[in-house]
């Protein structure tokens, strides 16, 4: 459990740092690195970075958008089309970020396994 929490926190911290410096795939790098150095088991390999980044992206997006009455979010939720449902857009944002991070985490884990022999 401690490892999961540690991986979760490190992924979050790295993602926050990388998001200032790197394009969107910074979250993949963050998950990859935590997967590499803090190995997890079974489903957690994917789920921990998935949840970390989904949470990060959703709360980040929410904090920007809520300060502006969700004007753009509502429009993008029409564009996609989600009938203007901002919650759905937030959810999709979380899933997209989480998916990328989860897979990167799995890859990081496999690298660790390979290196360990």
């Amino acid at each position: 459990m401690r490892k999961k929490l540690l991986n979760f926190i490190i992924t979050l911290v790295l993602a926050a740092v990388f998001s200032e410096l790197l394009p969107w795939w910074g979250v993949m790098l963050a998950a990859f690195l935590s997967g590499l150095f803090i190995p997890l088991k079974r489903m957690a390999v994917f789920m921990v970075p998935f949840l970390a980044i989904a949470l990060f992206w959703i709360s980040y997006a929410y904090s920007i958008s809520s300060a502006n009455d969700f004007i753009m979010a509502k429009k993008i939720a029409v564009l996609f089309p989600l009938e203007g449902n901002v919650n759905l857009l937030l959810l999709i944002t979380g899933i997209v970020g989480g998916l990328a991070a989860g897979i990167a985490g799995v890859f990081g884990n496999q690298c660790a396994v390979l290196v360990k022999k």
Partner: protein
Amino acid sequence: MKFLKFVLSLLLALGIYYGLNTKFGSIPPLGKFLDPAHGIWQNDKSESGETDGLELVGLEKPVTVHYDKHLIPHVFAENDHDLYFAQGYITARHRLWQMEFQTHAAAGRISELIGEVAINFDRGQRRKGMVFGAENALKKMQEDPETRQFIEAYRDGANQYIAQLDPSDYPVEYKLLDYSPEPWTTKKTALLLMYMTDMLAGGDSDLEYTNFLKKYGKERFDLLYPDFFDTIDPVIPKERDWSDWEVLAHDIPKGELPLDSISETMEKPDPDNGSNNWAVAPEKSYSGNTILANDPHLGLKLPSIWYAMQLATPEKNTFGVSLPGALGIIIGFNNDISWGVTNATRDVKDWYKIEFENEDRNAYRYDGQLKKTTKRIEEIKVRDGKTVFDTVVYTHHGPVSYDSDFKGNSQKIGYAMQWTGHIGGNNQRTFLELNKAKDYDGYMGALKHHVAPAQNFVFASATGDIALWIQGMFPNKWEGQGKFLMDGSNPDHDWNGFIPQEHNAHIKNPERGFVSSANQHPVDESYPYYVFNDGYETYRNRVINDFFKSKEKFDIQDFKDLHNNNYNLKAAELLPHMIENMDVSALSTEESEMLEDLKNWDFNNDIEKIGPSIWEAWWNKLVPLTWDELKVEDLALANPFQYQTVHLLKNNPDDTFMDLLDTPEKETAKDLFLLSFKQAVQDLQAWKIKNGDIDWGDYKATFVGHLLQALPAFSRFDLPIGGNSGIVNATKKDHGPSWRMIVEMSSPPKAFGVYPGGQSGNPGSKYYDDFIDIWAAGNYLELDFMQSKDQAQNVLFTQELNPKP
């Protein structure tokens, strides 16, 4: 096993990266797009003042920009260079994507952004010679050291903004289409001016008229498309006497016009691209100050074609609307003068039949000899596709737009365009000079540089002058020249000089105490140069002029009322005749009820009425039935003007054109009234079932569409606004008053203005569309004309632009 898992997870990681970093069809790259740190969430913000104290390379002195509560920037610079630098910077800051997109459209570069669906559009732009015209205009602008300095300052300002952009700051449209802004250039300013020229002076029907002439002969042509209507109320009042001018007139040359059949022509600009403007003299003004108004009618788009600004230096102070990409104020006022424009709608685009020597098209017949062509190879880059190369042949007339490669069919015959839009002029200078003009002479001097699109420039000064000049370069034509396709090998068919600028029709301080224009005939038949009907408006102008003849004094409220006037003169002139002459015994109960509703209508296209919906539905069915002869496959033909259609329906009801080709019976206008009414009622009933009430506002359903294919997410729909095409409030479904301005030349001037959009180009900003409801309700913003930078009140925030040391 370990290795296999490694490879699998590697492939999966690469796959997800690729999948979320790539655009698929119209789906943006989802990872990039939804990333809250760089994607669209970053565009979820409204402008505020957190960027105070910007340092910019190229500024000479500090510039202060106050944004008022409508986000209108009030720019105070120490000199003109800095003023236009700041204009470029600020415009890019609020309208970058639009600036680039419109100039890409002008240059025929849309395929670069959206792929092969735009290839035909892009080829059309190239074949119209849009880039050729822009290059000629740029040359003229660069020859003038002052203009050159200013367009370069504007460029540098815009580029300062672009250079400091992080991808996370890109306007949302870049993120949606997944591309990046490129640097602004002076050529783009020329392209933007060409974009306007094409919109306003890009229409003509010469080839359609040629087809008609060939099929039906001259007598029929003159009946359907007369040079002048039985009544006209021209821009320059009929009282104007031209007899003291010495005029060089050209004789009609001998020789035949080529009577070819042309199957297909390029898409034309909206024929309702037009405007109203007017000004009253002191004796007709409630306060003794001149008052001026203008409302240009263009496609209703977001971001709006206009961007409101105040531009001030110690020498001048100007307020009004600018065109993102062009310098200065285009329609506006300063402390001494105000001005506005409507389209002059003159025939400045003609077509010549070119016979090439052979299929290589290196030479064509001209004056009994062979004349060399030049070729321009147009490279059209296509997103996710192969680059298209299109060779456009140029003659001394201009580009051969139609040939075997484009809508034509013979390798040896082509149709060349001659257009004042290609001449190239320093139109930019006209506006820079108007911005600082102090009186009538300043205004007149400014106009001299204006080549195309020809405009009716209305003018009012604080000292009590009003005037109207129809300015542009107009070829001095022999009677009938350029109405039809001409013979490109005959030198007598060439344009032979231009109407001298001082002979462009104009009027200053007319006795009637007002000037006005609404795209109607510029002059009557007494004007000593040849002018023919190129689609002149016939309704708005009479309503406007009748209004100003109706009483002694006018105030600002009168001006507002006139902008919002919904009186449908066309309906008033035709509808009673239709009702009287229709066989009502053949109507069903449902149809009779609708007819009763229509009889009770007062001819005002107001939103809550159903009369206008029934009338417009009826008219829209009647016109195609009347001109069913002109809807033929493989032959381009144009419907006669509305005024003449009404005239013929009333006065020539038995004309053979009234007959329907599809039926064995011989129909007359009377039959068409009944038939079209029944069709209209059927349509309206169907509409009702689907959408509810047929109140005019709901039925017309005006919308303002985003520039990118009217993306619904970024557009506004179902706006409650009346009017229609041909009405002073010329708001139709997707087109109408794109800026309404009223200025009283008091000291300082009192001004009101509004446009259907907002100052910000960012759909995520509350300033993106905040004027739309004000506009639809017929209201205005009070324009805060700051007399100095220290006197600013009600400021939202202030930006200081400082030179970077």
